[in-house]
């Protein structure tokens, strides 16, 4: 049975290779080939899953060793897979949502002339993501980790002729690279500490290791998770990543890739369990991000960016739960799965709305769409109810458990984290109700007004090849084709029932327990109290939003807003900070270094050579422009020599 594991990765990888290297001949069938291979991977996953269910909980873990990858003295890196309950959960989520989104894209990208390449990239993403969750060591995980980063880069920048898309793609890759530094350093630390970076030996030996080392490893892993999962302070790329086609936002930037950070932390549970300081840092990052994302989500008028803020915030919940240790691991993953369903569904719904609205993204130019897009309305509505935690739906079960777990952490810490989680739930209810009301209810604000044309930045440029003359005219909202609505319906089913299904008899807890272990903690509040509080804050959030956006007409042009609103529209000024400090500062640094290299370093070395070797005549002829700086150069040369000698002495 373990021989099948490699097939999971191989099927989409083959698809990527064929679609990207194959010529135009494949243009007509490429998208179906890609979808088929994604479905094949899902089928293999189902087979492996049924097989796994037939075994005892304790020996469900499968291993497959393919080959020795980097054989160097003392350094062993293998291409080997490990499929346990945690990986299996991810594999099912990735392949099922992935296949649905492939199907959706067949319709969504129908008129794009580069559709074959799009499916090639999607397949590449699936292969890398599966590699990430199936690897049995951190270095191979790193390959998948950067592989999904590459796929994300290619897909965010899919419409490369749009400068904003190209910039967003580059930004995503760069910010992620900062996180990757963390993962690199963590692996190096593991190597020097344990002599290996395979999961089994490292996690097995974690308890016997000094806490300092483990804290360092844990913090580096957290840095990596912040990059990939868009957590503060490395969250700035996710909003811009919405430049990519909407199916990409659904699959990569909502359901799967951005949750890789949660996987990394839960997978490394033994390290974090023995490093309380690192755990504390994880919970702080999660708590800060869940508020940060929620606040940003309240202020955005772009439907995708509002959802991106929400994604950030929901992943904040997962990271928070993962930071709680064995109390929270299971619930982090459970929320991850339910979130995968409802957030993918919400994004696909947003894409369907844009599809029917000439690719307009500004919610202030929507309104009253429920009549025109009934299927989209219902599926989006169910996703909405799920994410705000409406009792009985998926999000209710998973989020409620996280809030309970946060209180169960105990002490002042527990109270603070629990309150933040509750506050976040209220804001979630508020901003999602806002999205819902702006889009599907109220006046039809798109009447008698041309939407963004493809020439204007801001429109998703699929319109360029799709809309034709319609791009400038008043939109005619209409329901999307079946290839798009079917995935939405299926995801809505998941959004409604998954949470309840997982909670019957705590089956999700029992399923993951052998891998992540589970601890009930010691909550100062009863479960019923927490649930009650969750429902109360939900009602408060919804009511507030209704007073603001449901009762009153919505202005088409956004009002100036309070200081907080304006800051939140600009991602709480974090981008401005980055721009001033990193971009501008970096530009000045590189420019001055170019100058220094050209004049000083060159001059000093030439000057030294001239003074030592008597080559001055030749050199002066070459660069008479710098002849006067020779005195300076020689002085500098002497200084460097002295410094070098001192350095040698010192060491």
């Amino acid at each position: 049975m373990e021989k099948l594991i490699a097939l999971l990765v191989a099927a989409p990888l083959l698809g990527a290779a064929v679609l990207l290297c194959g010529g135009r001949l494949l243009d007509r069938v490429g998208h179906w080939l890609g979808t088929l291979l994604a479905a094949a991977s899902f089928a293999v996953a189902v087979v492996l899953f049924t097989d796994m269910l037939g075994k005892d909980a304790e020996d469900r873990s499968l291993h497959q060793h393919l080959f020795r990858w980097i054989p160097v003295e003392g350094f062993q890196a293998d291409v080997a897979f490990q499929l346990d309950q945690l990986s299996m959960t991810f594999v099912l989520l990735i392949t099922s949502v992935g296949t649905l989104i492939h199907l959706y894209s067949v319709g969504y990208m129908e008129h794009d002339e580069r559709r074959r390449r799009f499916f090639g990239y999607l397949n590449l993403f699936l292969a890398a993501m599966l590699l990430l969750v199936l690897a049995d060591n951190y270095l191979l995980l790193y390959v998948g980790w950067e592989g999904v980063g590459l796929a994300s880069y290619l897909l965010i920048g899919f419409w490369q002729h749009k400068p904003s898309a190209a910039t967003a793609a580059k930004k995503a890759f760069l910010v992620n690279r900062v996180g990757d530094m963390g993962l690199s350093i963590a692996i190096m630390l593991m190597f020097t500490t344990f002599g290996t970076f395979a999961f089994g030996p490292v996690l097995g030996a974690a308890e016997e290791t000094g806490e300092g080392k483990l804290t360092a490893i844990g913090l580096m892993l957290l840095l990596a998770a912040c990059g990939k999962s868009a957590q503060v302070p490395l969250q700035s790329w996710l909003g811009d990543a919405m430049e990519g086609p909407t199916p990409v936002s659904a699959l990569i930037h909502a359901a799967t890739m951005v949750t890789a950070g949660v996987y990394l932390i839960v997978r490394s549970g033994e390290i974090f369990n023995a490093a309380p300081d690192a755990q504390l840092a994880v919970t702080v990052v999660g708590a800060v991000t869940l508020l940060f994302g929620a606040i940003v989500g309240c202020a955005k008028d772009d439907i995708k960016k509002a959802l991106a803020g929400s994604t950030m915030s929901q992943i904040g919940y997962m990271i928070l739960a993962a930071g709680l240790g064995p109390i929270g691991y299971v619930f982090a993953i459970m929320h991850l799965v339910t979130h995968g369903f409802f957030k993918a569904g919400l994004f696909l719904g947003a894409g369907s709305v844009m599809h029917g609205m000439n690719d307009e993204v500004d919610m202030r130019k929507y309104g009253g769409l429920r009549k025109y897009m009934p299927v989209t309305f219902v599926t989006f509505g169910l996703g909405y109810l799920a994410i705000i935690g409406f009792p009985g739906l998926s999000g209710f079960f998973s989020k409620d458990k996280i809030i309970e777990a946060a209180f169960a952490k105990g002490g002042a810490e527990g109270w603070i984290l629990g309150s933040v989680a509750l506050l976040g739930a209220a804001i979630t209810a508020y901003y999602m109700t806002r999205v819902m009301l702006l889009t599907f209810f109220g006046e039809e604000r798109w009447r008698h007004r041309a939407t963004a044309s493809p020439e204007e930045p801001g429109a998703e440029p699929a319109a360029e090849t799709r809309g034709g003359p319609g791009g400038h005219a008043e939109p005619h909202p209409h329901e999307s084709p079946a290839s798009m609505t079917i995935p939405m319906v299926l995801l809505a089913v998941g959004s409604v029932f998954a949470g309840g299904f997982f909670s019957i008899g705590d089956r999700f807890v029992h399923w993951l327990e052998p891998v992540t272990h589970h601890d009930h903690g010691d909550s100062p509040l009863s479960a019923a109290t927490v649930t009650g509080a969750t429902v109360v804050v939900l009602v408060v959030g919804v009511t507030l939003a209704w007073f603001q956006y449901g009762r009153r007409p919505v202005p088409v042009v956004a009002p100036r807003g309070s200081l907080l609103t304006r800051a939140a529209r600009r991602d709480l000024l974090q981008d401005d900070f980055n721009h001033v400090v990193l971009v501008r500062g970096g530009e000045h640094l590189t420019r001055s270094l170019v100058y220094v290299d050209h004049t000083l370093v060159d001059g000093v070395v030439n000057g030294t050579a001239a003074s030592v070797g008597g080559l001055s005549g030749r050199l002066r002829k070459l660069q008479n422009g710098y002849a006067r700086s020779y005195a300076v150069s020689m002085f500098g040369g002497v200084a460097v020599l002295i410094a070098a000698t001192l350095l040698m002495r010192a060491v």
Partner: protein
Amino acid sequence: MSFPLLTATAVVPAVGAIATAAVPAARRTAAKWLALLFSLATLALAVAVLVRFDPDGDRYQLTESHSWIADFGVRYELGVDGIAVSLIALTALLLPFIILAGWHDADPLETTSSRWRPTQGFFALILAVEAMVILSFEATDVFLFYIFFEAMLIPMYFLIGGFGDRAHAGSDENATAQRSYAAVKFLLYNLAGGLIMLAAVIGLYVVAGNFSLQEIAQARADGSLDMATNTERLLFLGFFFAFAVKAPLWPLHTWLPNAMGEATAPIAVLITAVVDKVGTFAMLRFCLQLFPEASKWATPAIVVLALISIIYGALLAVGQRDIKRLVAYASISHFGFIVLGIFAMTSQGQSGATLYMVNHGLSTAALMLVAGFLISRRGSRLIADYGGVQKVAPVLAGTFLVGGLATLSLPGLAPFVSEFLVLVGAFARYPVAGVVATLGIVLAALYTLVLYQRTMTGPVKPELAKMPDLRVRELAVVAPLIALLIGLGVYPKPVADLVNPAVEHTMSDVQKKDPEPEVEAAK
């Protein structure tokens, strides 16, 4: 006596150089094919070396030894270890691609006959460089090595100065002036390094009484040749200086951007992917073996210089406006990694450094040659003159991106393996150095992706609207390189197996052991 395979591997390109130069002026195409044929024959011989070499056998194999200048104990001594074999294979592999990529670089300009450039000479010089590079990888006599190490400057000088890029932003005369400046600068820097090395070579003879690498290393190892601490250090510095110029290491690097900027793209590849490798190779072979104590003494300073190279080269690459100069500064950053790996003195670091030499050759060749194809279409090296290329030439853009991703060491491509080994190896010995070097991976992403964004994405520049995509000849150059980058990224074992035993020898030369992990992990 068995067939002198190593000599043959160097003689074939040398003969090829002479034969190509002798082709009559009018038959340029014949000269090109002849050069290509000889480079392929050399490749075949290099493959034979690869096959005959037994990684787990003696340290030096396929040895040849003849008396040459008996009075001074200079011998014609050749021999290869796993490191040399892999670099010879790299050289022989890249040469046909360099020739093929430069197929039209030395064609006469149609306009004036006075600007006619001798095609034959161009290809003959390339083959001459190949012969000398291969011999410097093979020589185990210090003096013999020195001769070829220096002699290759001459053909390189003419290749840089005589066959510059046609595509240049400035006027023609200005271009010629800049080109000869670059060529002279290249020559002076390397000559200066060579002169200092010559002094050290003579000094070594005075101390040791002969030039044989194996004999001296043996005598040093068993204690029969004792050097005073200061003597050893001085000799080490003399050798190292020459290699650091060639490698090039900060602050001796400034000749490289000029040379790579002015030379045509294939010659730029020849410089950075092939010729410069002799510098880092020689650090491993000569500095560590002949002067183990001095090497350890100088290590902290060299590690600092390597780190400066990594960060400084990458930052300068970010600030470049010229595509080829950008790649040159990226190479400086990469050479910093190689030197860091060598002087980390760990198995992972040195194996990584050797793999890095091979992989950097492949990745830079891929990136630079595609850049050359791009430049030849537009006639400009300036990044600002491009934009939106992926829309008109998607294959060119795609291969350029793969080359760039290899340059930023994306996992799955060959350079990742070597870069990570270097980082781990450095980290194990000097954690701070490992962390600082890791910053380089962020900067590498920055300069590569900025370059890609500015040239390939965005709206199509009107001048580029009719740009043709890659031609068959160009694709034949790029596709195998990309296949190798992927192949060695997924399965680097063959090269690693070749290199590992040689690295173990070097490690025992300097009497260094790898740091032990702190916790014995439960297996």
